[in-house]
């Protein structure tokens, strides 16, 4: 079906729904690379106007990627809940934006509509929303998850302590993890991106992190971000696996590029739950996503990268994750060219993830070939705190020496706690105080010997 808008006697025509969505997307290099972006600002506005007049129901009638070819499309169709959808089923995309913004659309109403919304609907409405619109709506929507602590409560900000090392050296990993703990970082997870995908290294890394958590009695969880198949093998060999990690994307073909499908993710989810290491009913999965992943695998089917990203959230929400984050600026300038594009994408991803019911975090980050710097990251972090983001990722001095990109620093998390008044998860906040890291107001005050001398007490690394 074709869509039309007329602006001052000029008729703009869009051949189908995916063309309309792509042309309505705020400018970004990935859609230009794919050759699907609007020709210019006027054509983009024409597409946004046509999109605003489109009934939400249209997304149930026309699939962007056919269910015949794609299991993610089949999942989206199967999980759509018509009863939940009824609250907004008569609205156009433009009216849906207004409904979202109204004060009477409270957290509970947003929560009730979660499974009535498809990724395509939330991606569509985000395309006609400003940053402020998306922040205002996201801030209303809390998604709370639990493992050993409680993440996503209103007004709080959790952090992933990411102690990566270029060769997965045990001492290097622990030194970096301790550095983060001394700055109060690590209540979302202490999670390492391994340099190899060897099962032995995976088991060594989770064992190291588990000993650290256990000896210091930290109310948090740990993770080695290897492939799900490696995690399943490690679980079979009795390794202490808290969270099972996987990168996911928005089409079956793109997921195949990551070496996974829905059946394998289900198997991994069950393996993780079988260990019963968290509190009863704990969330055990951790997913990462990012705009451009599908295009870079040539698995986008002519759909714009932001809509493909929202489709990845349909995959993630199938498995009740503890944590999901977009690695927003990691993929490079061919997908998000500069600070402006990275900032908008971070706010969009958080907004779409939250509306779809995900415990959404963001890796606020960039690479050295993107036109971005620390000030862009300051802006995005501050906006995300206003939007009530569940967690962000922090590394020593903002420099990840293994993945060669800049994420946030542990210092940035101190800024969020002390200037923006965003304390961590309550269990972790209590631990910080009891071990002597923070005062009663949550301000960092010291370096307790239990942490700074931890290396000596470790059985797994020695001093």
């Amino acid at each position, binding site marked *: 079906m074709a869509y039309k808008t007329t602006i001052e006697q000029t008729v703009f025509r869009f051949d189908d729904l995916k063309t309309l969505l792509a042309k309505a997307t705020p400018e970004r290099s990935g859609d230009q690379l794919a050759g699907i972006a609007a020709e210019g600002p006027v054509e983009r506005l024409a597409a946004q106007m046509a999109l605003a007049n489109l009934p939400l129901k249209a997304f149930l009638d026309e699939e962007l990627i056919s269910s015949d070819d794609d299991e993610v499309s089949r999942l989206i169709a199967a999980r759509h809940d018509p009863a939940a959808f009824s609250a907004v089923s008569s609205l156009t995309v433009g009216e849906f934006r207004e409904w979202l913004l109204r004060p009477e659309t409270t957290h509970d109403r947003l929560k009730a509509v979660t499974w009535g919304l498809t990724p395509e609907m939330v991606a569509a409405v985000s395309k006609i929303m400003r940053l402020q619109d998306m922040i205002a709506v996201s801030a209303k929507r809390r998604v709370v998850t639990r493992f050993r602590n409680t993440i996503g409560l209103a007004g709080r900000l959790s952090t992933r302590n990411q102690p990566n090392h270029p060769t997965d050296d045990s001492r290097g990993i622990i030194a970096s993890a301790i550095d983060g703990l001394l700055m109060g970082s690590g209540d979302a997870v202490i999670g390492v991106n391994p340099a190899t995908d060897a099962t032995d290294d995976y088991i060594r890394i989770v064992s190291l992190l588990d000993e650290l958590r256990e000896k210091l009695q930290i109310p948090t969880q740990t993770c080695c971000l290897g492939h799900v198949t490696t995690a399943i093998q490690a679980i079979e060999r009795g390794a202490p696996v808290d969270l099972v990690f996987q990168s996911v994307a928005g089409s079956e073909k793109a997921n195949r590029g990551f070496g996974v499908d829905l059946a394998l993710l289900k198997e991994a989810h069950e393996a993780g739950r079988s260990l019963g290491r968290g509190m009863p009913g704990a969330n055990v999965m951790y997913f990462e996503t990012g705009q451009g992943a599908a295009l870079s695998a040539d698995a986008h089917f002519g759909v714009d990268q932001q809509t493909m990203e929202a489709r990845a959230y349909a995959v993630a929400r199938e498995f009740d994750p503890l944590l999901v984050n977009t690695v927003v600026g990691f993929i490079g300038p061919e997908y998000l060219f500069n600070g402006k594009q990275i900032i908008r994408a971070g706010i969009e991803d958080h907004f779409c993830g939250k509306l779809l019911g995900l415990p959404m975090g963001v890796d606020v980050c960039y690479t050295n070939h993107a036109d971005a710097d620390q000030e862009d990251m300051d802006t995005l972090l501050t906006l995300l705190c206003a939007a009530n983001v569940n967690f962000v990722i922090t590394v*020593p001095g903002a*420099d990840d020496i293994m993945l060669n990109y800049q994420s946030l620093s542990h210092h940035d998390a101190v800024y969020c706690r002390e200037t923006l008044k965003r304390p961590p998860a309550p269990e972790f906040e209590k631990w910080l105080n009891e071990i002597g890291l923070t005062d009663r107001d949550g301000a960092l005050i010291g370096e307790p010997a239990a942490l700074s001398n931890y290396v000596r007490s470790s059985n797994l690394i020695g001093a």
Partner: protein
Amino acid sequence: MAKVIEPSSTEERLDLRQMTDARVSLGRHGAGLPTRAQLSFLLDHARAREAVWTSVDRTALTDRLNRLGLSAVEVDSMASDRSIYVRRPDLGRLLEAASADRLKQAGAGKGYDVAIVVADGLSSSAVDLNAVPLIEAFVPKLSTLNLSAAPIVLANQARVALGDPVGEVLGAKLTIVLVGERPGLSAADSLGAYITYGPKQGNPDSGRNCVSNIREGGLPIREAAEIISKLIGDMMKTRVSGVALKSAVAKLPSSQV
């Protein structure tokens, strides 16, 4: 409160900085970095940006190669400037038409074994510092292997896969692309070497072997040259490169290994 939190100085305390190259134990003033650490980070970022956005000095490179008795020919990709190059990886893999003609004149039909391509990639500093010393170290090894080399190709706004059309036009059996890697904060001058047997437009990346992080403080030039010439030897024997190379080498009769 402007109190500086410095690491405690008890004798037992271990220095985290001895255990990792990560930016640990930086100290802080409130949430802010100490000024020196802040400026040092910005300097590293400035160096990395400069490596991405500065052009390789091709005239100087040509002079240095000539002094080694090697000739050079310059080519461009279809990406006309840096700003287009970083947005359009596809154009950085295509050879511009006039460049293809220049290459044909320089060496087509001469039956070279090896084409060496110096590609700016994402770091001009990597190319300026490390490309000529690496070439100097491994070109003599080519004659030991009885292999002929085409004139060195200096490629502008080039991705790794530009080596495929270049090798194809030159009719070479194998290409070695020396490319400036995406700069990190701690090292902006890493050179990568990608070697492909049977260069042909559209070759998959799984058909290449890569030697990365070639720089002072990373993989030293001399060691990199050894690894590269060993790979070249294996590829010429097996006529295979990439992920399939290892098993192809294993199948060689023992007299040839």
